[in-house]
């Protein structure tokens, strides 16, 4: 590769022999070999466009496909039957001219309802996982990068004040909340004063107590993760959802807030090993700030396992949402989701099996395809697993 050129000025070096492939090309080359993962990805893309189509076709006052339009004349029609044109009023005639997935016990078009539900599943999956990945990267990054730093008593006080203040504010105790929040601001000011005085080398006993080291950041974050993992998360979600007003946003947030632990552990583990890497030391030697090192240099190197767990997390979030809807805790009734179509259909499972089969198989396919896609990603992104199959 490099010849023994004596003078770099005059003789230029040869082209490097390393293959001219970008990482993306390399990634795609490996990914292509895994047929199941490709199938998963194709289903994922189809689902994505279906969900977007579902969103645009079923919204508004006069949607193209109305998922909520009741036609009692046409109830429980099997899939692929034509509507009974004589008995329907003009605005009740489905635009497609056919019930692709049949109708339910109120004569609503199951195809339209499935489309509407697919948007719910997609958004729940992505938003919930987005929330959990953001929390995971943030907490995992802090635990991994700053983990060995101890939390001082002063900082503990600030945190305690902040937490109680926010809780009080949430409970609409404006006055008490504000007072406690001001308390935390005072604590921050005291810390700054003590830090300024620290250069004088004469520290009072109070200042030393204020700076007394308690447990490390890593301990706090990771023990919190352990605590969260102890809860059976589906029941935790059920409880929270039962307490909150039923809405799709609450469900997204609750699922997101109860599934971030895996991402946190992954990111922390990656950060612990990345922190010791030479390129991080080199970045520091270039005078980069901690912020820049974490966000520009370490996170891009740490996202691979998070990406994999996120893909599989989307599948489980979709499943959780369907389960919640099935139990009646999900999105409120007029809105269709795969879970509540399934739940409505179970009363007619022998008379109208399509009402349970269609959403059931849709859930199966989506969850399966996300899992296959996720596993394909993991095989490509983790070279150690590559040789197995």
């Amino acid at each position, binding site marked *: *590769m*490099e010849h*023994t*050129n*004596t003078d*770099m*000025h005059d003789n*230029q*070096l*040869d*082209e*490097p022999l*390393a*293959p*001219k492939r*970008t*990482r993306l090309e390399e990634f795609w080359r490996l990914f292509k070999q895994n047929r199941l993962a490709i199938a998963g990805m194709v289903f994922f893309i189809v689902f994505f466009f279906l969900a977007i189509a579902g969103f645009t076709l079923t919204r508004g006052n006069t949607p193209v496909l109305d998922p909520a339009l009741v036609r009692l004349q046409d109830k429980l029609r099997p899939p692929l039957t034509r509507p009974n044109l004589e008995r329907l009023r003009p605005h009740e005639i489905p635009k497609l001219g056919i019930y692709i997935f049949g109708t339910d016990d109120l004569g609503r078009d199951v195809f339209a309802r499935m489309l509407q539900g697919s948007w719910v599943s997609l958004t729940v999956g992505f938003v919930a996982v987005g929330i959990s990945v953001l929390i995971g990267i943030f907490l995992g990054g802090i635990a991994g990068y700053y983990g*060995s730093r101890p939390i001082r008593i002063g900082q503990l006080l600030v945190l305690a004040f902040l937490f109680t203040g926010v809780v009080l504010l949430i409970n609409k105790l404006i006055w008490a909340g504000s007072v406690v929040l001001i308390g935390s601001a005072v604590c921050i000011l005291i810390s700054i004063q003590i830090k300024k005085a620290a250069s004088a080398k004469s520290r009072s006993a109070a200042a030393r107590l204020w700076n007394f080291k308690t447990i490390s950041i890593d301990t706090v974050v990771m023990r919190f993760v352990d605590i969260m993992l102890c809860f059976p998360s589906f029941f935790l979600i059920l409880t929270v959802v039962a307490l909150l007003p039923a809405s799709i946003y609450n469900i997204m947030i609750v699922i997101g807030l109860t599934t971030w632990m895996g991402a946190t552990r992954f990111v922390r583990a990656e950060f612990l090993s990345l922190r010791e*890497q*030479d*390129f991080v*030391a*080199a*970045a*520091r*030697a*270039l*005078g*980069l*700030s901690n912020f*820049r090192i974490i966000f*520009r*240099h370490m996170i*891009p*190197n740490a996202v691979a396992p998070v990406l994999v767990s996120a893909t599989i997390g989307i599948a489980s979030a979709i499943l959780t949402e369907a389960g919640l809807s099935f139990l009646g805790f999900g999105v409120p009734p007029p809105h269709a989701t795969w879970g509540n179509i399934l739940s409505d259909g179970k009363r007619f499972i022998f008379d109208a099996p399509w009402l349970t089969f269609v959403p059931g198989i849709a859930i199966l396919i989506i969850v399966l395809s996300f899992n296959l896609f996720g596993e394909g990603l993991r095989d490509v992104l983790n070279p150690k697993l590559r040789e197995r199959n």
Partner: protein
Amino acid sequence: MADNEALLSVEELKVYFRSEDEVARAVDGVSFKVGREETVCLVGESGCGKTVTALSVMGLVPIPPGEIAGGRILFNDQNLLVFNDNEMQAIRGNQIAMVFQEPLTSLNPVFTIGDQIGEAIQVHQTAPPTEVIQRSEQLLKDVGIADPAQRLKDYPHQLSGGQRQRVMIAMALACDPKLIIADEPTTALDVTVQAQILRLLERIQKERSMSVLYITHDLGVVSKVADRICVMYAGIIAEQGKKDAVLKTPKHPYTQALLASLPNRDKRGQRLYSIPGTVPNPAYKPRGCPFHPRCQYAIQTCCEQFPEMCHYGDAHMARCPVIFDDGREN
């Protein structure tokens, strides 16, 4: 050398590493100076404190467990040890840059060469993107990489070890630092590439009139690049002086032993000399002169008293009071 000439002046630097029940005195009172446009080599065995010395100049010693226990590091007559994080960040990369030992792992695998050199420029200076690209290209050309415009788009894994070390040097040069600390920059490279990199560093140093603090354990490299040499042993400087003075008339028994253990043509067929014993554990250094258990000239005082620096003229000094006239007789 007069004080005002020194770009970097390390004075009685002490860096300790604390663990639960012991204190490792990695650097234990090191003083040396690096003049403008001068190359100073820190030489010594593994674990003698070379790298820790360099890291403390950069302010990169991990604290804790590390601890700067004393001394001053004057750079342009400013004490770097009292600087806070932000002030140090402005110095690092901008005025003092570092080239690391392992070019294979010192580049971030997920960014292109151009991104990384560009970042080195942008962190300390504001420049429009087109100018950044232009300057990155010029830097790559300066370090002898062919087809720089194309290489800027490459990822680190597409380059060879020597090319990566050139890129690292280009990054170090990005902001025209006054001092480059090279921590064994050629250890991971094979011999021919090593020679190229050494010549490159030498040429760049002349062109840009920089100072270089070169850390190595390779006396062959030292004899090529150094203006002055500091020989370190167990956290102290055993001997320092001009290259020729130290290599030709070593005054410290450790330096003599090091030179004696080099293979050369006259010793062909003979058994290679080696220094008896091992480097002391930095947490349990012997009393007195740290080298005395391995020193063939050791006398009673060596076991009891920490040796003073003895001056031999022309800034040549050695921490050994047992004076040798020609390096052989006691």
